[in-house]
């Protein structure tokens, strides 16, 4: 069976004024559908870079990224945007909700370019908010929600297009431990529901829930435990 995600010898160099630094140095790994993988490592190890490459937000300096058999580097910017919308859900540490939109509207944002009716969009958003435990808070602005609630809205937003994979960058990094646990429960639930989850984290507690742990060190895979 082909892996869901395959990285082949992926390197990423950041250059500035003729000086380049390698964030990733020939990383190769495969992730199967339905895995719950956490990516750990110290600051500067290349975790976030790896996540953004996996999400098609960055093109690696060299190497190949295949997701569902599609070479991401072969896609045009617009096709890549479509692929992201259909396949990947992003969750950021700082939530990145639009502050002038309500919780419902934030969840509806990824659907904005689509011609789906407003009621249908709102109904889907309300259903997703309910599934992450935010029933009754659909009309609240991010400033009226707690950090945990904001992250739940961000998760609901990531689920709008029913993606196969969720990429989460330190999703509990801005939350207290109790709220963080609740968010991790949500991820566990999504994983059980069949989603592939890739999470960058510093939180050792996350390792207990994951089916796989990948540790990066200096841009290389230092440890890969399934």
């Amino acid at each position, binding site marked *: 069976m082909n892996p869901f995600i395959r990285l082949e010898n992926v390197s990423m160099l950041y250059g500035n004024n003729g000086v380049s630094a390698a964030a990733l140095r020939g990383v190769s790994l495969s992730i199967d559908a339905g895995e719950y993988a956490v990516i750990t490592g110290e600051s500067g190890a290349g975790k976030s870079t790896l996540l953004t490459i996996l999400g098609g*937000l*960055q093109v690696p300096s060299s190497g190949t990224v295949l997701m569902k058999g599609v070479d991401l580097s072969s896609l045009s*910017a*617009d096709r890549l*945007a479509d692929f992201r919308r259909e396949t990947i859900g992003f969750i950021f540490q700082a939530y*990145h909700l639009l502050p*002038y939109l309500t919780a419902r509207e934030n969840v509806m944002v*990824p659907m*904005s370019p689509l011609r789906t009716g407003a009621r249908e969009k709102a109904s889907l958003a309300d259903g997703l908010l309910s599934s992450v435990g935010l029933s009754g808070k659909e009309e609240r602005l991010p400033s009226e929600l707690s950090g945990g609630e904001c992250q739940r809205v961000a998760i609901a937003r990531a689920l709008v297009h029913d993606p196969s994979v969720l990429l989460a960058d330190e999703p509990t990094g801005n939350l207290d431990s109790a709220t963080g646990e609740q968010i991790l429960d949500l991820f566990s639930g999504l994983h059980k529901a069949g989603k592939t989850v890739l999470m960058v984290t510093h939180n050792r507690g996350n390792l207990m829930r994951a089916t796989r742990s990948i540790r990066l060190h200096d841009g290389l895979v230092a440890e890969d435990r399934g």
Partner: protein
Amino acid sequence: MNIRKLAWKNLFRRKSRAVFTGLGIFLGIGTFVAIASLTAQMEQAVRDKLDRYGANILVTPRTEDLSLGFGDIALGGTQVAHSRLTTADEKAIRGIGMKERLRSVVPFFMTAADASGKNLVWMGMPGTEIATARPWWKFTGAPFGEKGEVVLGSEAAAALDKGPGGTVTSKGKTFRVAGVLHPTGEKEDGMVIASIADVRSLAGSPVGVTFFEVAALCKDCPVEDIVAQIGDALPGARVSAIRQVVESRKAAVDQFRKLGLGVSAIVLAIGGLMVFVTVMGSVQERTKEIGVLRAVGFRRKAILSLLFWETGWVSLLSSVSGALVGVAAAMLAAPLFGVEMAEAAFFPAILGVAIGMALGLLGTIPPARRAAALSPTEAIRSL
């Protein structure tokens, strides 16, 4: 939620930026619409006056100046008329191809005759045509009726020491003075004005016409064509257009319009620049937001669309409000520019809204392209 609504919501989030973006367009369109509207009204007023103040074509007998002299000694000159005009010529004028453009054809007959012992010029014209041919005349008393009444020019009245109710005699006939003409500054101030039939009778010329004044409805029509047609109908007459005053007024309006459009163009250019600068600033400020939108699957076209909708809303609101203020300002200022009946001119307003929209959208093209080209990589660095 759709892109239109997303754009609208974002505008409310950044009200002061939106107001600043729209201000340039508002001022530019307001100025443009006010000036375009005002000049349109001024041109209309000129045309109305041209029609209202009667004649714009004069038909006189063709004459030639003959110089009299002997060798280098000049003895003055004399005019020789080739033919005389008669009442029959009025029919010929009214029969031209563009006859539907003729508002009035008024015959005048002039003669010098005795008036209660003083030799004065008598001017005859149909009493029914006074309001058409000389609408600016004002009287003490009343205008003359068709027969047996006269109106005295102000100087003639003073010379004869006559006023309304008095009488003037000429060649054994007595005429009642119906009124005295208020001073006009023209030659008729020294004339006796009466019905054309009475004046012809005094001159013994029952069908004579000294000249015709023709009023043509010349809104957007070439008066030269009418002149040519009358000339063809009356080969023995000299037909000329009275255009000097109108042309000079038109020239003044044209200059005002050119100046106004120049000012509008400058203000509009500044407005466009303001749109460019503020939208560019907005793109810089919203790099993170654009990155998030790209991450959740917005295509470049969707980002372009978002920015165009934002500027579109601002441009529409500021153009419409600028156009309304411009129309209102033009109406208020119209009396100061000689427009008696100020009217709302909607064409400049519609044009102004279209220009404002175009300006806003044009000013958005470079920053929107930059935003759409923004790589998620660049954007996510701030995530």
